[in-house]
């Protein structure tokens, strides 16, 4: 099967076959990182721009390493805007980067849908590195990849996603990815942070942590953004942590070989107790390593699709 997408914008629009192809390609890419010389010439002469309108350390670094391991030329463009960035400004910025020779643009933007706007208006290939509360496809794909490597499959697994579902683009990409590949997805959090439409995208809502993680093969903990505690979604961090923080005791109801994941950065003692974060079930650092292989696969497949279109 050939990959025919010039852009990777979200997991909602990818088919199960396309997702599987990304994961298979990432398996081959992983080995490059184990070599003495961690570089292959596949994207020589291709300029990739990382256009970040939100602060990000790990995602941007991971994209940059992936680009460099494929021998692409990398241009980092970071602007942090506190106010809403107007469509015109965003487009002008991106057009400038294209004029400098960038043929792929990795974009993170606080507005949901921003990557789609660029995909429509530009010739470059667009890769969504997180848009608003909407999607974070590379994180979703690396979560799928990490689970598939550990469990040997996705189909039939029980996945619990815990925390601030409402504001989480990771949750949405994970829900689309895992359900497309045949897993059962449950979400849990305070009722204020579990959106009403969640059942429409095939995730089962829970409001009690133990109910959601009972028998779960994978528990994905989301980061609680500390700035949310002032906006009345929950009374206090302490109370949140008491009800929805994962501890060894609460984890007992999950499957025996449960895996705990977190997209990072973790708030120790809030979402996760330290003994879980550092425990045998947690694969948080493995997720980070896998992220490079998955992003390399995304670049390779998008570049190959550019040739055919």
């Amino acid at each position, binding site marked *: 099967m050939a990959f025919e997408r010039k852009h990777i914008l979200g997991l909602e629009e990818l088919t199960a076959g396309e997702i599987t192809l990304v994961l*298979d390609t990432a398996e081959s890419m992983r080995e490059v990182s184990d070599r*003495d*010389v961690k*570089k292959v010439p*596949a994207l020589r002469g291709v300029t990739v721009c990382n256009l970040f309108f939100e602060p990000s350390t790990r995602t941007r670094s991971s994209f940059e390493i992936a680009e460099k391991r*494929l021998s692409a030329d990398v241009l980092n463009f970071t602007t942090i805007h506190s106010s809403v960035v107007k469509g015109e400004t965003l487009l002008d910025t991106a057009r400038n980067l294209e004029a400098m020779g960038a043929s792929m643009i990795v974009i993170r933007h606080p507005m949901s849908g921003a990557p789609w706007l660029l995909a429509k208006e530009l010739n470059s290939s667009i890769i969504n590195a997180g848009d608003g509360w909407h999607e974070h496809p590379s994180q979703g794909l690396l979560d799928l990849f990490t689970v598939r490597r550990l469990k040997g499959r996705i189909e039939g697994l029980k996945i619990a996603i815990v925390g601030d579902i409402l504001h989480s683009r990771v949750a949405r990409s994970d829900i689309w990815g895992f359900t497309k590949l045949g897993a059962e997805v449950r979400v849990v959090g305070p009722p204020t942070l579990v959106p009403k439409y969640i059942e429409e995208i095939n995730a089962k809502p829970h409001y009690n942590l133990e109910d959601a993680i009972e028998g779960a093969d994978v528990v994905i903990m989301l980061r609680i953004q500390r700035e949310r505690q002032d906006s009345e979604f929950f009374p206090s961090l302490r109370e949140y942590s008491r009800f929805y923080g994962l501890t060894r005791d609460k984890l007992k109801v999950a499957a025996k070989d449960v895996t705990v994941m977190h997209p990072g950065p973790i708030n120790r003692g809030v979402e996760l107790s330290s003994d879980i974060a550092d425990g045998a079930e947690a694969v948080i650092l493995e997720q980070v390593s896998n992220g490079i292989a998955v992003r390399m696969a995304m670049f*390779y497949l998008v570049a190959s699709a550019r040739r*055919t279109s």
Partner: protein
Amino acid sequence: MADKVVMDSDSVNRTISRIVNQILERNNGAAGVVIVGIRTRGVHIATRIANEIEKLEGIRPEMGTLDITLYRDDLRQKTEWPKVEKTEVPFDLDDKKVILVDDVIYTGRTTRAAIEAIMDFGRPSSIQVVTLIDRGHRELPIQPDYTGLKLNTLSSETVRVHLKEADGKDEVVVVKQ
């Protein structure tokens, strides 16, 4: 379209045995020799070479497999990019004698890509190229060290190497288009 069988099962086996003896002769045995096969059919031939060396010398050389997709020089032109398969070289290549195995050598571009890939794994003391069929038409200054059979072919013809492991029987066929 007419197919011409240029090697049958017996001659494929005899040829591989002969190449194994040449490898052992030139390298004074199997010490320091590692075998790396180029996907897909080169890997099967490489495995047979490793098996025979083990039978003759009593030591099994280390074996790796190479997928050269990410090193191709035609990625900027190719309309459809091939799927990237796994590369596995789970040992140190420094100061090793690398026997690089492919089924057919044609333009030499695959071999060039494979040599570049091997260099990224370390600094071998030598790289020696094995091919079952040399069908001519080189576009790069690359020659095999061990050749099973040299064929005069037309560019319009296709050489198909069938191996038991992948195709059910050993046979080399020239297909005229």
